[in-house]
């Protein structure tokens, strides 16, 4: 499996994925280096290929870009965008961090929610954004996702969710931790109502999001080569003082160990999700 050989650029988590930010078009044809095959890809080609390199490497993608890619034209109707983070613990530097990230990411929080149609199938959708504090889950992320599952249960709609997250948001302390329980309870109610939830795990899906709604879907898909795990690889290395096995905590690794249903290339996702929605909607 060549995909197992993906090398993760080490600085991505540290830079909050900003090294992957869509490069603005300027004079000439700017290029972006693929961290897997190390080839330079012209930006226009990268965008035309939905941020996937010819070698199969999937670059990270902003939430709205993904919504544009997955949902039917003009069908997405955003919900809960009015909910904004405060600084409930008066955590040092949090407000300033939020303000900076809101400008740099163009989002006001780490998840975008709403209703949409995918291949003509009506559903609720949430898409997390790695460019907003590495998709960390604070109160607003928890509240938006919980509200979305409640709305979906009330209106008997399936939920499609794209996860990307470094885990809980430290700056919201216990309130952040409790979002794991809150979102899980909402997923359970939606599930008990007999409704479908499809999750697509994208790079990286870790920590408190893995240990809650990412792993609670009826059908769990993942993008090739994504980091999927609970504890951070570096923390594990430090704790156990052991070298990690090759391909540890990738989509391929978690599929091999039985924790996800399928790995799906970005170009195949819309078709597969449409099909899954149709099958669960009477065929």
């Amino acid at each position, binding site marked *: 499996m060549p995909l197992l050989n993906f090398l993760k650029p080490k600085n991505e988590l540290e830079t909050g994925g900003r090294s992957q930010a869509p490069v603005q078009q300027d004079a000439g044809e700017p290029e972006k280096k693929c961290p897997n095959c190390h080839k330079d890809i012209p930006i226009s080609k990268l965008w035309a290929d939905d941020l996937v390199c010819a070698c199969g490497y999937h670059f990270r993608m902003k939430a709205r870009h993904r919504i544009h890619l997955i949902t039917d034209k003009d069908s997405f109707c955003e919900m809960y965008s009015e*909910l*904004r*983070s*405060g600084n*409930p*613990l008066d*955590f*040092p*530097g949090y407000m300033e961090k939020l303000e900076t990230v809101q400008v740099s990411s163009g989002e006001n929080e780490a998840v975008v929610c709403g209703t949409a149609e995918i291949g003509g199938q009506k559903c609720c959708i949430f898409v997390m954004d790695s460019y907003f504090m590495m998709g960390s889950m*604070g*109160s607003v992320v*928890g*509240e938006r996702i*919980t509200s979305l599952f409640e709305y979906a249960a009330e209106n008997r709609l399936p939920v499609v969710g794209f996860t990307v997250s470094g885990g*809980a948001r*430290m700056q*919201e*302390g*216990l*309130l*952040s*931790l*409790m*979002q*794991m*329980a*809150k979102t*899980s*309870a*909402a*997923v*359970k109610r939606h*599930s*008990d109502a007999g409704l479908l939830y499809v999750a697509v795990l994208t790079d990286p899906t*870790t*920590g*408190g999001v*893995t*240990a*809650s*709604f*990412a*792993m*609670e879907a009826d059908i769990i898909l993942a993008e090739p080569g994504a980091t999927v*795990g*609970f*504890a*951070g690889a570096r*923390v*594990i290395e430090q*704790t*156990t003082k*052991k070298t*990690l*096995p090759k391909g*540890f*905590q990738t989509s391929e690794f978690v599929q091999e*160990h*039985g*924790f996800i249903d399928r790995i799906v290339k970005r170009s195949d996702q819309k078709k597969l999700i449409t099909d899954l929605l149709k099958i669960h909607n009477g065929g």
Partner: protein
Amino acid sequence: MSEKAYERVKLARDNQRPTGVDYIRNIFRSFIELHGDRRYGDDTAIVGGIGRLNDIPVTVIAIEKGHTAKERSARNFGAPHPEGYRKALRLMKQAEKFGRPIICFIDTSGAYCGVGAEERGQGQAIAENLLEMSTLCVPIISLLVGEGGSGGALALAVADRVWMMQNSVYSVISPEGCASILWKDSELAEKAAASLKLTAEDAKTLGVVERILSEKDMGTKAFYERIRAMLCEELEELSKDPELVGKRYDRFRRIGTKVEA
């Protein structure tokens, strides 16, 4: 102020504090330990079984750290593997089947970080507990008796009532981990401890726990008797409540809703 929060962290980690097994021995009559998750193995960091609270049959689950170096090593320092959480869930489902209330004692720095834990789905195991505990139709009371470390603690704390010992702590991340990630300096753990609002008083103010238990006579007969009496009283009330599961949902639903519009 910051020193105070970090002092609490040190107290919560003190290996002289009563551990899960101490609480089980002193509060419940005729405890019968039940092992294994029926899937992979038996995790020594989590002790589970059935016992009697006065005359009420209950299911008891405790994360156990041990006191001595030897005990602590045998208990993996109270850091459960996925099979521990799966054992706990198996026993909780059994409790639901037989209509027994569930009492959990929590004391962990967190779910274990290791290759095997990841291979066996640590995240999935915790997620499943959160999902399933939210609708178990028997009363659940969870007591944080030492460290309440993140998802590994929450996986036994989706309860109707969560109580904390006066010097226990409950946090999304260890103060050292937080300082190291945010400020690249684990020496700033004191500042992180204060910022994280992880003391029992903080948790109560945030609406995350209902009650703080005094430690003034910790470890004495009177101490355990007092906890036994509180548990009995609380279970009597919870057992009569026809809206138990709905109220548990609301208990977590309202946390973190005060967000600015």
